[in-house]
């Protein structure tokens, strides 16, 4: 079995990360036009409100939770040494997971039941949606079947992930984990590697810069303060925003 574990927990993460980085950059440069959320609300209407909100907010917060536990295991352990906090966070995570499940399932049903949406649904859309659904089910299974994930994630999985980051993979701990958790980990890497080739790329171009940009945007083809200055060379009046 060690070759399989080596493949899943050593080779796969690196392959996934490389495909993700190279793929995302390549696709952005080659066909940036295709980076879009491809919203289908326009064709369907208000029906997606609840499901879309549940899914997006849920997965966003859960993702951040996973990221924080991975990046700052000591902090997570310290914070959860208080059982009240642990129980609250455990319940919150479970609720969010259920929300994501309901949201995702609702979105899938919506997509299948509206003929108009079929024309904007590709095979890849269905594939990634099913993968996400499987991943969420595995996550919920983990949460219910192997309680107190804040502890064992921080204690066992985070060091493994860090060892991958440090190019010195230590897979003993993860190899010994229950199959459900292993599947969840492997699923994460597969989805990561697929992101550049799916509609999920839209999260890479999330518009946070909107928060601190000026509201109105005006673009100039030339430097208007210099363009009529006889002393300015034409190369100088080329503006930066082209």
């Amino acid at each position, binding site marked *: 079995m060690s070759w399989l574990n080596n493949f899943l927990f050593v080779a796969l993460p690196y392959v996934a990360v490389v495909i993700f980085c190279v793929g995302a950059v390549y696709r952005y440069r*080659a*066909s*940036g*036009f*295709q*980076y*879009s*959320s*491809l*919203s*289908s*609300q*326009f*064709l*369907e*209407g*208000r029906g*997606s*409100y609840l499901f*879309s*909100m549940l*899914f*997006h*907010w849920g997965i966003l917060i859960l993702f951040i939770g996973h990221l924080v536990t991975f990046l700052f295991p000591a902090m997570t352990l310290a914070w959860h040494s208080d059982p009240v906090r642990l129980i609250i966070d455990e319940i919150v995570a479970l609720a969010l997971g259920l929300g994501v499940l309901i949201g995702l399932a609702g979105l899938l049903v919506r997509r299948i039941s509206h*003929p*108009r949406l*079929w*024309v*904007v649904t*590709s095979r*890849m859309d269905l594939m990634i949606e099913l993968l996400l659904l499987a991943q969420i089910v595995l996550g919920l299974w983990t949460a219910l079947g192997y309680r107190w994930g804040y502890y064992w994630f921080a204690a066992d999985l985070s060091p493994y992930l860090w060892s991958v980051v440090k190019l010195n993979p230590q897979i003993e701990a993860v190899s010994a984990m229950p199959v459900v958790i292993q599947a969840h980990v492997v699923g994460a890497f597969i989805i990561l590697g697929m992101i550049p*080739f*799916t*509609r999920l*790329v*839209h999260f890479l*171009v999330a*518009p946070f*810069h*909107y*928060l601190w*940009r000026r*509201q*109105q*945007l*005006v*673009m*100039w*083809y*030339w*430097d*208007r*303060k*210099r*363009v*009529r200055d006889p002393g300015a060379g*034409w190369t100088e*009046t*080329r503006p930066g925003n*082209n």
Partner: protein
Amino acid sequence: MDIRSQVSMVFHLDKCLGCHTCSVACKNIWTDRKGAEYMWWNNVETKPGTGYPTKWEDQGIYKGGWEKVGGAISLKGAGKQKGLLNIFHNPNMPVIDDYYEPYTYQYLDLIESPAGDDQPTARPVSLITGKPIDIKMGPNWDDDLGGSPDFARNDPNLKDLSPAEQEAMFQLERMAFFYLPRICNHCLNPACVASCPSGAIYKRGEDGVVLINQNVCRAWRMCVTACPYKKTFYNWHAGKSEKCILCYPRIESGQAPACMHSCVGRIRYLGVVLYDADRIHETASVAEQDLIDHHMSMLMDPFDPAVIAAAKANGIADSTLHAAQSSPVYKFVKEWGLALPLHAEFRTLPMLFYVPPLLPVMAAVKEVSHREQEGKLSSVAKTWDDSWLYDTSTEELWGAIDQARFPLKYLANMLSAGDEARIKDPLKKLMAIRIYRRWKTVGDISQQKALDALGDAGYTPEMADAIYYLTSLAKFDDRFVIPAAHREHAIEMLEYTGDNRGNAGFGFKAGTMQRGM
């Protein structure tokens, strides 16, 4: 003073025939594509009517434009907080059914059906799903007050009219309507630009055209909500938003935009207007009744030496300044005070101005006595049995405007933020020109009366002649005064528009437009 130039427009509503040539010209050039079938960057709607998309003027539904909160303004349905919180699902966005589901007919069935007892029919099929559909609505479903009471009577501009006034408007004998052609207004304070989380929408500094960068748009769809005129559209196939581009490739090469070039009624005028960009924010934030006056005062006199100097310091070319000095738009809007912005209360400072329609307003259906009526008509004329008269007489100089068969309030709701006095002013001026021309051409009005009318409207005979010329006789080059693009300064102006060897299609260097992933 931060002087900028804007390619601005005037539409003369009295002249619009409602022929839709403009819409078709635009569609053929720009929106005859998958995902864009339902889009009419230029559309002509019958007023009263609910328009396109249905009830677009009702911001209680669509939450478009800006609203005044205290002393400042903020976007009504989008913006930094509302926009980002609603990014996963935009509750204020119109959906395809608010426009109409595009369709075609299976024409081939007419030819290829096997012989049978019945005539073959061409069934309508959806251009989205390709499946047969029952057509519920189409473009201009309510053209010429057609359709059903669902349309005209739901016009949002009727909101302040009393039930009696509304009823009067729709009595068959009094029924009147006019056409309202609409394109993107290329606003000075564009809500679409401010609402775009990606920063894909921008206003071009040189000529003020508002564009969406298709490579940066990520389909967050906030612009569709934010534009109160509903002139940004979501392409459901490409997953990108699109809007009127004022045919900028044509403008840059000295041609009029397609809708304007093809306009059969010659109602459209295009020219440069210089404005003071320092005052945009302040102007957009004033009280509702002051909006139009402030907007007008931002448009600067292109002959004023101070304005010219400031414009030159801002890099505006001499050719553009000359264009501004002979701009038909400046004449209609500022010199003659004949044109008003549509729905100024949305606070986007639109730069498309409308000369209000005089015709349906001026004539009134009056109840008159039989004797009076007979006295007016010649002996061979038909006399009616009832006592109603469609009266276009101008015995009283301004009386007819107030007794119009179109309540002034209705026009005011559209063109002067509800202010009846403000809409009366251009109507009075139009009427004065009409009386003056009547004296000149028909001669049944005394010269004194004609000159009195002009004097009341603040016009000299020379101005009246100029207005008459530009309204009725103007040639192509009078109606469209297009500034040179000065590509010697900016070869990049057309960099992305498919003019490089190896480029394919409009706006893309890679292949044809492909829906993403």
